[in-house]
């Protein structure tokens, strides 16, 4: 029941706002209540148990065995927690909206509602449909309230995501059809029991479709070009929600659907995936260094970090896969904070071109401190959850078939992946120096520091990433039961 509340409250609040409820207050209360509900769920969750908890189900189509089923296991619980925290922060960070204030908050809540629904759904049909619910709100958010070349950015993200989604849809229908008549279902629980029934040829085809479909949604190289542009143009709260939460849908989908149900397909295409994710880490990493604007740099950095999560998914070990889950969470928090601060800087200085910024640390000390923490987290300094995730991913990938005499593709990928850490240190620290260090530019002297009230969302985000950085076992213990069943034959 509480799960239904979490999924429906943001959507109902969005509808209420469209019908004239006071936008900011309604949105903040709705986000606050869902956050409280999610935390209650987290506290009441019985870690270490396999299977799904708090399951609730309504029949939709008996011909297709589609049911509106909600439920959580450790993995989806952490995704819900991430969504709740980032949504709350994004709405809190929303500044003054000059036009269509109602529509703005409604769109934000719809994106959040779509993410909640997708992560809580146990039925593939609704898992897919909820994600798509966010498509038009995203289009409108970037198109109406965006900055820079917002039109092109809005078109690009919409058409990319729509194409990716339909490829994904074909994959899901094929998955459904590849099963014998009696076993057909869209229910993830039922599908998990039928994993062995899909013929090898079909597994390979379906996995490729799912990989491309989910890959486009997560900006897997070379389908990434929508992401930096969209995040640079989007208003800060939209970028926080999309880069922090919604984009993770594709990774969650791979972890939830593609890897457990199509192990043969995963094996067949792993080499391709590793080549592509190294494109994310190395190529996009270098592209990130070359950026001249803070927002573009953050956008590219988020594309680059997807490479690590993909590496964890491709690693084929319990350690690496759990690391991917930790990293999804950690990256969601750190990128949301980075986009939030850069949005505040844009509001106060009117520019995000690195050359035109400098010395903001003296003018905006609070912003500099928060950005610094988020940047350190994003690089993956020890103590932050990102570090935990990256270490787990890299060790996990390295361990797959490790043989001291001969490195395989997993070991090479892990070695090259380590280079990525250096690359991200280069661009993050460079950007930090450019923006916050040095003498304060005269043109920026009018800027003011963050309001005191913003300490609450910032503190919340930082505390969470530090907590899971120092006590990763609290996180890992919750997600591993989900993954353990994937690797029964492997260490």
């Amino acid at each position, binding site marked *: 029941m509480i799960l239904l509340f979490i999924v429906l409250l943001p959507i109902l609040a969005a509808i209420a706002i*469209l019908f004239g409820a006071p936008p900011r207050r309604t949105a903040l209360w709705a986000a606050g209540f869902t956050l409280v509900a999610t935390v209650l769920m987290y506290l009441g969750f019985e870690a270490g148990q396999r299977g799904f908890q708090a399951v609730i189900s309504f029949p*939709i189509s008996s011909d297709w065995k589609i049911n509106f089923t909600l439920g959580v296991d450790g993995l989806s619980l952490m995704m819900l927690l991430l969504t709740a925290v980032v949504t709350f922060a994004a709405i809190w960070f929303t500044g003054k909206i000059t036009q269509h204030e109602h529509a703005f908050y409604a769109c934000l809540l719809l994106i959040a509602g779509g993410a909640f629904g997708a992560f809580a759904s146990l039925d593939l049909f609704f898992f897919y449909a909820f994600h798509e619910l966010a498509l038009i709100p995203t289009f409108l958010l970037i198109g109406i309230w965006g900055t820079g070349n917002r039109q092109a950015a809005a078109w690009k993200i919409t058409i990319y995501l*729509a194409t990716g989604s*339909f490829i994904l849809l074909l994959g899901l229908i094929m998955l459904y059809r590849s099963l014998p008549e009696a076993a057909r279902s869209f229910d993830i629980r039922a599908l998990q029991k039928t994993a062995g029934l899909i013929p090898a040829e079909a597994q390979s085809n379906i996995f490729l479709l799912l990989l491309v479909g989910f890959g486009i949604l997560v900006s897997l190289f070379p389908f990434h070009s929508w992401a930096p542009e969209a995040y640079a143009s989007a208003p800060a709260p939209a970028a926080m929600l999309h880069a922090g939460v919604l984009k993770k849908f594709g990774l969650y989908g791979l972890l939830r659907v593609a890897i457990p149900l199509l192990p043969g397909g995963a094996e067949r295409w792993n080499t391709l995936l590793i080549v592509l994710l190294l494109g994310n880490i190395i190529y996009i990493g270098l592209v990130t260094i070359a950026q001249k604007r803070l927002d573009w740099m953050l956008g590219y950095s988020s594309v680059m970090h997807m490479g690590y999560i993909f590496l964890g998914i491709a690693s084929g070990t319990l350690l690496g896969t759990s690391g991917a889950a930790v990293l999804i969470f950690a990256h969601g928090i750190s990128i949301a904070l980075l986009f939030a601060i850069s949005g505040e800087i844009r509001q106060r200085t009117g520019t995000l071109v690195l050359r035109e910024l400098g010395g903001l640390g003296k003018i905006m000390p609070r912003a500099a401190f928060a950005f610094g923490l988020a940047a350190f987290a994003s690089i993956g300094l020890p103590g932050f959850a990102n570090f935990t995730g990256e270490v787990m991913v890299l060790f996990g990938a390295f361990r797959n078939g490790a043989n001291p005499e001969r490195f395989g593709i997993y070991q090479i990928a892990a070695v090259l992946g380590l280079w990525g850490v250096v690359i991200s240190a280069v661009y993050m620290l460079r950007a930090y120096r450019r923006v916050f260090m040095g003498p304060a530019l005269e043109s920026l002297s009018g800027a003011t520091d963050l309001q005191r009230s913003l300490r609450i969302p910032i503190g919340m985000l930082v505390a969470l990433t530090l907590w899971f950085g120092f006590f990763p076992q609290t996180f890992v213990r919750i997600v591993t039961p989900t993954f353990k069943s994937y690797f029964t034959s492997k260490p």
Partner: protein
Amino acid sequence: MTIGAPILEIEVLLIGLFVLMVEAFFERIDKRTLAFTAIFGLAAVLVASFFLTPSPADVATSGFWSFYTADPLAIFFKRFALVTTIFVLVMMIDYAPIVRESIHGTTHQAGLGEFFALPVFTCVGLMWMASAIDFVMIFVSLELVTMSFYVLVSFTRRNPATLEAGVKYLILSALSTGFLVYGITWIFGVTGQTNLARIAVALADPAIESGPALFGMVLVLVALGFKIAAVPFQLWVPDVYQGAPTPVTAYLSVGSKAAGFVVLLRVLQPFFVLPQMERVLLVMALLTLIYGNLAALPQSNLKRLLAYSSIAHAGYLLVGIVCLAGEAIAFYLVAYLLMTLLSFAVLIVVAKQTGDNIEDFNGLSKRSPFLAFAMTIAMASLAGVPFTAGFLGKFYIFDAAIRHHQTTLLVVGVITVACGFYYYLKVVRAMYWEASTSDVAVPLSGISRFAMAAMIGGIIFLGVYPQPILDALK
């Protein structure tokens, strides 16, 4: 209480005649009452359709039931035709002032009565067509539909574009009728039958020459291709759709097309024993998908955009035809009915104030948030966003294609869906991003608002809970 199926058509016919009589003998009344009469009459027939007795299960060898059926598909499409006509009549009430302007008449209401009566007769034709299982019956009902459309398309005859549309429709429609009759004679010549079930039996006989029968079928396909606006028989669509009075365009693109698909489903059934048939249809589906979607991309006039979009949707429906997926087609048509009529309904009220170009919708969200919202739902559904009926329609169609391993269709389908997102969201962009040219709210009558709300509700309800439609076909 139970009723025999053909009584529905007779009732609708009587409603039409009644409206016509009142129009002829009572000049002084407000002609809009006629429209309301027709709407309530049709609604009553719609209710009555739920108390039907089914037709005899086996095909009678002679007599009435050898050319008329009341199977679930037929009943389903009778209701479909009734709902379409009701919504079109609501739109026509909104459109009445424009008709008044463009008719030379002695009174200020001249011509309105016929404008409201003709769709009722078209509806009779559509309902017969849904039940037709004999080529002669198909031909006659198709002609009844087409005849009333000849008049409707060129109804606002002072407008040169409308006249052009009328002439184009007349000539090409007559040509396609010629193809239909010619095709039927070939099939009759080979099999000696006009009843579809008996043609199927005759064709299954290995002794029969399939070549001439196939030739006849291709001719029939040409005629039906014209009705459903499939490439390469789509040339008339953009001009006629743009020129015709908007409610008539809506009627053409929903009613006429749906009837075409029902007939196609029935007619093709016996011919699918011939392997060449599938290839012909496959090519047609591919061309229609590609042409409709690509040509829609650069359009700046919304009415014309919807014309190309109707070709594009014919493409998706043809994918269903290739896979002979009756259920998927039926569901898609229902979704198509709701979303297309909704977009035309909004178009009519907005066009009265500004115009029917996409840029006339600029800033509509500020002027009339409800209309902008309705249009957004319609466009989202046309593009195929989940939780709308249009998405589930595509879902079922793609599923049918996957089941039949039509890889080419799937690849092209994904590309065209992406195109669709571009041109449908173009309208959304105009309404929400662009600055408004005027800030006067668009006036909206109560009944139109009610009809639009009903269509929005229908789109979202079927997008979440499709089972009622699937059950209705069983």
